[in-house]
């Protein structure tokens, strides 16, 4: 199993969609989480994401990401819940610390929105080839190729840098730096010196990629250079309408 942004090959219904329809779907799913005031609706969007991941055959990857997000969100929830002082007190703790109903609801919505908005983007990137993404942005949206290429390359480099960071941490652990400590704060403190090697290797990799692209005639490329076409089919239109309906429903949902 690759990193959470690596392309996962497949021939599912979602894989076959036009990349633009996938972008629109993920964008609308994220928007619907932000426009709604309903926690149940947010929860449904998250479940829909998991179901879509299952259809695309990447349910294990989606669940792994959900687990990571839940851990991060639990941390955010506990910080946020103590800072909102309005509303009826639900739980009173020593040192004038208390939890209110408004605080609990706000924090819950915040984490649900965060999960609901992050998952579709990761899902879309997992089932779309970066080349297709940049090509469709050039062909259909009219973004200059240089910018589309830069955007998709930046996304593609995230898992590369994650792997590089893991390698650097491994090398530093081998020389005695205690990255294997259970203390999370100590671990964060130890990560800062690693910015130097990560930055150096990142710049080298980017420079190498830029030179390689230049030598292959990157600057000669025009909008018409792409040989693949990305027609918008009935399924793409259907998915786009469904996505738009969800976003609108998010505003008016009564529960």
């Amino acid at each position, binding site marked *: 199993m690759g990193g959470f942004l690596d392309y996962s090959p497949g021939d599912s219904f979602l894989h076959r969609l036009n990349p633009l329809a996938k972008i629109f779907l993920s964008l609308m799913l994220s928007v619907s989480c932000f426009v709604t005031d309903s926690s149940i609706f947010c929860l449904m969007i998250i479940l829909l994401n998991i179901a879509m991941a299952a259809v695309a055959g990447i349910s294990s990857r989606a669940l792994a990401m959900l687990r990571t997000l839940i851990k991060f969100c639990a941390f955010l929830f506990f910080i946020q819940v103590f800072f909102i002082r309005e509303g009826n007190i639900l739980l009173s703790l020593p040192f004038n610390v208390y939890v209110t109903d408004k605080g609990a609801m706000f924090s819950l919505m915040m984490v649900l929105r965060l999960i609901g908005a992050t998952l579709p983007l990761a899902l879309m990137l997992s089932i779309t080839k970066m080349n297709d993404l940049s090509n469709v942005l050039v062909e259909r949206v009219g973004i200059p190729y240089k910018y589309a290429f830069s955007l998709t390359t930046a996304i593609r480099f995230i898992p590369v840098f994650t792997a590089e960071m893991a*390698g650097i941490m491994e090398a530093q652990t081998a020389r005695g730096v205690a990255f294997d400590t259970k203390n999370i704060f100590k671990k964060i403190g130890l990560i800062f010196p690693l910015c*130097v090697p990560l930055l150096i290797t990142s710049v080298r990799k980017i420079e190498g990629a830029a030179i390689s692209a230049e030598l292959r005639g990157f600057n000669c490329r025009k909008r018409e250079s792409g040989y693949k076409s990305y027609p918008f089919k009935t399924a793409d239109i259907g998915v786009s309408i469904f996505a738009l309906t969800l976003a609108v429903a998010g505003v008016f949902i009564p529960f």
Partner: protein
Amino acid sequence: MIRFDNVSYSTNGIKIISDVSFELKKGDFTALIGANGAGKSTVARLCNGLLKPSRGAVNVGGFDTALVRTSRIAKFTGFLFQDPDRQICKNRVRDEIRFSLECVMEDRAEIEMRCERTLKAFSLDGERDPFSMSRGERQRLVLASILATEPELLLLDEPTTGLDYRECMHIMECISVINRKGATVLMVSHDMEIVQDFTREVMVLNDGSLLAHGRTKDIIRDESLLARASLLPPQITELALRLGAGYENVITVDDMVSAVKKKRGGAE
């Protein structure tokens, strides 16, 4: 120093190492050879606890690697990776060596003394920026910062890859010196010439299994064994094997010269 007892290692359901057992004693200089993907680097990483065995036990310097942290094992172990840039994290050569020492000891005076001694031994300019050095120099700096800690066990993961002959010999000479002082060395390598010239024992790994473990001069002459691991003997050994009788003990160029002279002398 290192003992593997029926060690297996799997990741994502794929078996990388299968039922490997061996023992290395203090002062050994052993090479780990095999084709790409044979599991050599995995064995090296299992040796200092960077990876924990899925089955079996790895014992290093009296510690079960599954039970202690890698940073604890690193107190007496040095690990040289193929890519020096992953290990360098300071902007001055002196700071890089000092950082390595600070990871394993606390005595400031001792750290400064060892740092200066290492700079001198490796002819390094302490004020230089490591990232402005050549790849070979950076690899030498990383080795210097490891050797400054005087490790009892040195693990080398293809230390000479990408280096020219001069840099390669420089690195290997440094490693030989620390081995002669009593350190145990386990070196992963593809370079059969280096293996032949510097190591005393060889382990052959194929598809995650240990095919053979024996004296270097015996292993590198066993063509069928090497072929099973998709390897070729060093050129001088291959030549000696093809020449046949009278060249059985040829391992180095000097051996070949002696053998040829002896043959010619005999013919005369």
